[in-house]
């Protein structure tokens, strides 16, 4: 039962010999690599660094909010802090992380391919990422962007702060995203192993496919939009200047046309990871494969029609307010389909209690609550009250941290042995998971209450009656931070001193586990041929066998 059912030649014996990590040595071999696995690792280091930076600014914001009056900084600095936090987290972590790290690493392995379709373009994508990241971060630190990550006109076009490097950085990061998406779409279309029809694609691939479609279609619009803001700032002509007959709300339309699908760029890969992991950790065929696959496409599609729900109080027409509200509800339908299918997979499965499973449970809880509060804020009459309050902040953090970052951690732990050939320490994993899940709740549930009570977002001072909840939120954030530090420590330890893992420690039926762990440079010794459906643990009608991993 522990042999994979698909027929494939086993790759060379694992890490005792040469693998992608030690195949070529030296920094230069890494910087000029076209190996998707190495590029994935470089993305991993980069996004973790970005997460650290974004997290530091988050703590700065939370510490400032410990008291109703200025605590450690003045108003302008506070504006810069939350701008830094937002820009770094969204453009340097949330959007590139799962596709850049795990998409890059796992996609060719899951497809039975030797690499992505355009390996050199892949290398370009990470260079674009680094360039954009350095420009954006240094631009914010030296120039002091204070507009929030949303860069709304007319403030962004008239603020005295230097925005141009940040805008250019975001523009370049957009290109990185487009290149990655383009690469993945072509890879999925043209590099599938023999026997792998569309309905045998692993669900992670379906999620990455839907994500890549959004990346390719939506990102050019934000590229143009930030370019227009930059031109208006630098050259004095633009489309958003009301004193010259322009419409600032036009900026919001163009901005959110990308930025709403962008949240699905963040969420779809997370859902894709969970689909993979949930089958592995319940050792059961995934429930409703087709529905999960199609609902990924459904979310990508509907996500393009919903952007106006960020603009209910901006001056957008009542008619469009209503239209966008109704359309936004449909996303909930597709998400709910997935949640039911995931729970259906867990039900009567042979559950493997492990760190990833704790994060899976956290994910399910948070995506349901985050999603439901999303439906709530999509209701115009309610959002009029909640817009620009902490209610919205809590909603999107429930999804972005509660769903996406949980999923990132699931991926990191589930695929750790695949990428590095070592196991992390399960005990510490669970301790950290406890800190993270509890800390997360303690951070963001008070924010729902704060927002509902009327505390606005992006304000650094607030009425005294909000202090208790703010202190609770900051305390929760500290627990979160401790959790992340613990993870950093034991994973680093596992990298250098961790127990060597076998090729398939979870006995997962994912195709990526057909190769050695860590994989050799060219992934497979021989072209795998796919003869079974994805996530196949039992034959039809067979009972779930309860094994202990």
């Amino acid at each position: 039962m522990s042999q994979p059912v698909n027929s494939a030649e086993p790759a060379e014996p694992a890490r005792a010999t040469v693998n992608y990590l030690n195949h070529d040595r030296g920094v230069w071999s890494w910087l000029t690599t076209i190996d998707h696995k190495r590029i994935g690792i470089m993305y991993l280091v980069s996004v973790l660094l970005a997460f650290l930076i974004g997290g530091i600014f988050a703590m700065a914001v939370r510490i400032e909010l410990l008291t109703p009056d200025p605590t450690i900084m003045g108003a302008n600095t506070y504006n810069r802090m939350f701008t830094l936090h937002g820009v770094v987290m969204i453009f340097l972590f949330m959007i590139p992380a799962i596709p850049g790290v795990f998409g890059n690493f796992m996609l060719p392995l899951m497809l039975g391919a030797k690499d992505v379709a355009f390996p050199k373009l892949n290398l370009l994508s990470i260079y674009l990422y680094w360039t954009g990241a350095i420009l954006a971060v240094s631009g914010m630190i030296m120039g002091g962007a204070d507009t929030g990550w949303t860069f709304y006109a007319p403030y962004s076009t008239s603020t005295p702060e230097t925005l141009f490097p940040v805008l250019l950085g975001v523009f370049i990061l957009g290109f990185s995203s487009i290149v990655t998406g383009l690469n993945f779409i072509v890879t999925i279309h043209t590099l599938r192993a023999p026997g792998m029809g569309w309905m045998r694609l692993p669900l992670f691939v379906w999620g990455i496919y839907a994500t890549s479609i959004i990346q390719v279609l939506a990102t050019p619009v934000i590229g143009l939009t930030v370019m227009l803001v930059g031109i208006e700032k630098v050259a004095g002509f633009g489309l958003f200047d009301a004193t010259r007959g322009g419409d600032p709300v036009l900026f919001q339309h163009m901005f959110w046309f990308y930025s709403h699908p962008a949240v699905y760029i963040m969420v779809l890969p997370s859902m894709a990871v969970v689909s993979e992991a949930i089958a592995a950790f319940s050792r059961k065929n995934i429930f409703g494969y087709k529905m999960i696959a199609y609902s990924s496409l459904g979310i990508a599609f509907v996500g393009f029609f919903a952007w106006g729900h960020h603009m209910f109080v901006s001056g957008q027409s009542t008619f469009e307010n209503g239209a966008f509200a109704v359309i936004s509800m449909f996303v909930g339908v597709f998400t709910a389909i997935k949640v039911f299918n995931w729970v259906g997979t867990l039900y009567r499965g042979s559950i493997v209690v492990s760190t990833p499973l704790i994060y899976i449970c956290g994910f399910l809880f948070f995506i349901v609550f985050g999603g439901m509060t999303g439906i709530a804020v999509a209701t115009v009459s309610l959002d009029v009250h909640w817009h620009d309050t902490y209610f919205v902040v809590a909603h999107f953090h429930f999804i972005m941290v509660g769903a996406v970052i949980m999923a990132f951690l699931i991926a990191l732990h589930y695929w750790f042995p695949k990428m590095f050939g070592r196991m992390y320490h399960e005990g510490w994993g669970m301790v950290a998971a406890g800190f993270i899940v509890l800390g997360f709740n303690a951070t963001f549930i008070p924010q729902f209450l704060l927002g509902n009570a009327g505390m606005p977002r992006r304000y650094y001072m607030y009425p005294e009656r909000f202090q208790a909840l703010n202190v609770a939120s900051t305390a929760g954030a500290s627990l979160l931070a401790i959790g992340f530090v613990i993870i950093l420590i034991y994973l680093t330890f596992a990298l250098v001193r961790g127990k060597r893992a076998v090729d398939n420690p979870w006995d997962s039926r994912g195709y990526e586990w057909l190769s050695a762990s860590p994989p050799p440079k060219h992934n497979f010794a021989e072209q795998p041929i796919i003869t079974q459906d994805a996530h196949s643990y039992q034959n039809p009608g067979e009972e779930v066998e309860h094994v202990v991993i």
Partner: protein
Amino acid sequence: MANETKSESAHGEKGHGGHGIGKYIAVWVALLCFTGLTVYTGHEDLGAINLPLAVTIATIKATLVVLFFMHMIDTPTANRIVFVVSIVFAIVLIIGVFGDLWTRNEMTLPSAAPSTLGPEIQVSGPGESPVPVHHE
């Protein structure tokens, strides 16, 4: 020089036929005709029809270029879907946003705001910036 080469080749190849060079020339002629049509109709003041008519003619020209010059007529379906979908979402962007401005309360429209560059502008001469009528 290059012109002669080009017309030479056009005349020369027309005789050979090749595998459809005539097709390219025919499309080119059609494009020029439609260009003439759009220049003529565009300059007449036909009222509200002007914009849809111009866009329709442009769409016909674009379709000819895409189908025949870009060979979309015999390219794999995936490529066609990609291009068509991108056009569809470009249209979604335009309609979605325009729909907002079309259904907004008149007073909140950009054209309702007093512009500094309306009839009350005083322009001194070339190279000088206009004097804005409002406060700073």
